[in-house]
């Protein structure tokens, strides 16, 4: 890598070279049996080159492939892109590598799946969930012309399970995901079994406004909209509803939001982003008041703040090496008054608990609009889940509805977008949201 970068420096005014080496394994268990085992070992490189006050880029899958330099120069010739002011700061140490995850063989992944199946068998032999388990070990190395030369190792561990309806479709889905090893406990599985049983009672709801609790997992669909607006790049484009609102009360005072790339063993934790900028614990909203934006290197100069370490090579649907570094979450975290989850539900006379949604990636995301199918949700009557809500949608705009947040729950769940996780959130109670039912 160093040799290749030396060649880059000989024909340019500077640049940076990003290398990702990864090894992944995954095991899929269907109907209680291992059905698929997949593995991967790959290297990816991305080069950004500065010449004549312009910047070009190229990617490759081999350190021996010198054509990456020629192609970056072609890119530099045809595109107009202001060169990034590369960082030289040494990043902090962030705990994001777990040797247990790194050492897990596919046999051990399968054994963990079997352990979960055995707990289901003990409590409810009739429910056999599908189980997906994976581990990944990544080494990220960034070199730049300012002398930055750092690397880190990161592990990722994910386990998800789905129970099935009588027709064979997903009934309940749950998952754990972090940089370290995670286990579904007997208590977690008991809760999933209870939800599965309640789901056997299908209920229609009327169209109207009612109290709605978004579970932590489903909050990802709403936080995708917040993430689009909190990026400094959206603010500079003039398309963010949060533009010019620093220090203003934008949401309910019950909610605090931060992006913490240094969270111990968080799924999005790492010492530096894909441009080499140290990650941070950035307060974005404090008790409803807007405190800051996520900023890349160039944004930070304009805002006169430090960059937040949020530039990553991924989009909503891809994590390809050719994705240019763009602002994204590390671990978005929702904090608040942490009312016990049981109490949050108990105090509702008639409302809905949303466990998962479909359609999070559709609609006018930057404007905060959402109109989501309730993939899995429960009707709450007199403080109890009474059945699974069928054929219902929840719709609104987060910039109106986050003002209606009445309480924040306790147990964190992984917030999902479509393919990837964006952080952690407890359940959130909204005073009233629009529901379209039958």
């Amino acid at each position: 890598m160093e040799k290749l970068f030396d060649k880059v420096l000989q024909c340019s005014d500077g640049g940076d070279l990003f290398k990702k080496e990864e090894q992944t394994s995954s095991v899929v268990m269907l109907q209680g049996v291992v059905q698929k085992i997949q593995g991967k070992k790959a290297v990816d490189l991305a080069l950004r080159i500065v010449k004549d006050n312009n910047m070009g880029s190229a990617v490759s899958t081999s350190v021996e492939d010198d054509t990456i330099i020629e192609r970056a120069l072609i890119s530099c010739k045809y595109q107009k892109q202001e060169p990034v002011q590369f960082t030289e700061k040494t990043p902090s140490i962030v705990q994001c590598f777990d040797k247990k995850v790194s050492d897990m063989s596919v046999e051990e992944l399968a054994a963990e799946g079997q352990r979960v199946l055995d707990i289901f068998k003990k409590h409810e032999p009739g429910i056999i969930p599908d189980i997906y388990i994976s581990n990944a070990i990544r080494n990220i190395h960034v070199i730049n012309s300012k002398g930055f030369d750092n690397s880190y190792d990161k592990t990722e561990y994910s386990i998800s399970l789905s129970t099935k309806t009588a027709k064979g479709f997903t009934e309940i889905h749950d998952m754990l995901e972090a940089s370290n090893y995670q286990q579904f406990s007997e208590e977690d599985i008991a809760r999933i079994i209870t939800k599965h049983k309640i789901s056997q009672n299908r209920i229609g709801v009327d169209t109207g406004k009612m109290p709605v609790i978004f579970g932590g997992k489903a909050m990802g669909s709403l936080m995708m909209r917040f993430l689009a607006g909190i990026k400094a790049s959206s603010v500079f484009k003039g398309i963010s509803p949060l533009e010019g609102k620093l220090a203003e009360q934008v949401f309910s005072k019950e909610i605090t939001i931060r992006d913490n790339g240094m969270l111990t063993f968080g799924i999005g934790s790492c010492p530096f982003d894909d441009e080499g900028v140290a990650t941070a614990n950035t307060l974005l909203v404090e008790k409803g008041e807007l405190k800051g934006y996520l900023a890349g290197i160039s944004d930070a100069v304009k805002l006169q703040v430090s960059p937040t370490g949020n530039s990553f090579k991924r989009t909503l649907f891809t994590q390809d090496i050719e994705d240019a570094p763009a602002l994204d979450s590390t671990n978005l975290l929702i904090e608040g008054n942490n009312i016990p989850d049981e109490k949050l539900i108990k105090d509702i006379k008639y409302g809905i608990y949303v466990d998962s949604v479909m359609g999070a990636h559709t609609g006018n995301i930057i404007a905060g609009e959402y109109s989501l199918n309730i993939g899995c949700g429960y009707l709450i009557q007199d403080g109890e889940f009474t059945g699974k809500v069928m054929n219902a949608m929840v719709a609104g705009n987060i910039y109106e509805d986050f003002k209606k947040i009445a309480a924040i729950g306790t147990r964190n769940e992984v917030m999902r977008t479509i393919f990837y996780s964006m952080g952690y959130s407890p359940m959130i109670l909204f005073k009233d949201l629009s529901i379209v039912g039958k």
Partner: protein
Amino acid sequence: MLKEKLIAALGKEGYQDIRYEVANNVSIKSKNRDIGEVNVIKKSGGHARALCGGGIGTFSFNKVEDTAYALEQCVKSSKLMPGNKKLAPAEIVKDKILANPKMDPRRISIEEKKELLLKYSNLFMDYEGIANVEGDYYEAYSEKTFVNNEGTVIEQEALICGIKFAITSKGNGITQQTRLSIGGCQSYDEMLDKEQAVLAKAKQTVELLSAKPVVGGLYDVILDGDVGGLFIHEAFGHLSEADNLLGSPALRETMAIGTRFGRGFLNVIDDPTMEGNPGSYIYDDEGVRGIHTYLIKDGILSGRLHSRETAALVEEQLTGHARAKDYSFPPIVRMGNIYIDKGPNTMEEMIASIKDGLYLFGSAGGQTSGEMFTFAVQGAYAIKDGKMTEMVRDIALSGNLFETLENIEMIGDCVDFSRVGGCGKAGQIMIKSGKGSAPIKIKAMAIGGK
């Protein structure tokens, strides 16, 4: 040379295959009146599979030298799996497929591609009310070599190019977004002379600013060809991908061939062999030729899309639909070009039949969980007493697959295909996935609104 190396790496035990791919892509992005990123991308890697035990072990890699290691891992994984999985027998093929576009995008200079992208971008930006236009020229060319230890050797070129625009209008204190796609096939000339389409989309995007937000509720709706294609892709297409049936006897029963899914005039087809659409190809990533497949014929479930594994499971004919996004992923069952075939009704008849409903235009993404589906559209016209009236906006729909297919009351007499692919499944976003439909009328669809 590569081909010989791959063949030499194959073992004799059980079933083994290797797919090696060299991808040469061009990406040019524009923002308003300027060119943003220009990328000439070169990537290569392979994917190996083995069935020597109870299931298929898979492994992806970059370096050709790692092929033997990858196969070793596959054999080991396969033996760890219990059971007795089989692959449906496939014809042994030795073939070479070359991309043969009418106008080859690989022979067009980056300068010309930039100019075309900017010409359309400027046309959008010149239209009063348009605030932002992001353009994306994509060109993906790959050379894939597939070999297996049954004797199949296929060298196949794949090529697709197109332009996608995301258009934003701003005014009246709101913004509205639409999309326009052109090309979506091998030939560059399909992207030329699209000024009228650009101007029509600009006009529509600005008119949406004056549209009223939809009021949530149940509506009788007409879906245009683009939206109908999205509907059948999300609501039914994914369920017809037979890998859903692996490990689910209940779903096999739900999806039994011969089950009635709609009225007699409903015909749904997947056809990778049709030329000039995003999901067109010759051989899939298992070396099986893709074929025209009736999924619903005269309202009855009559087929599904298969890999060799799923075809063996349910003892049905191979269809050649096992495909991967690239060498990083295993092939999974994917649609080629899915569409609702034409029916007996004219558009005038369909509009006249609705007292209070919506004509939906322009797809804007969707999702399915199998039984339930949802999708968003770019906008709609209200239909009152059999006449198209004002525009409405902010529309997303959802429904139950089985009920909704039953609720298709009318089908138009002409099929339109979308000019862009794009489908996500199991972490793989595939641009080479086509969709289309004749206009359809569905009664009582749930539409979300504030």
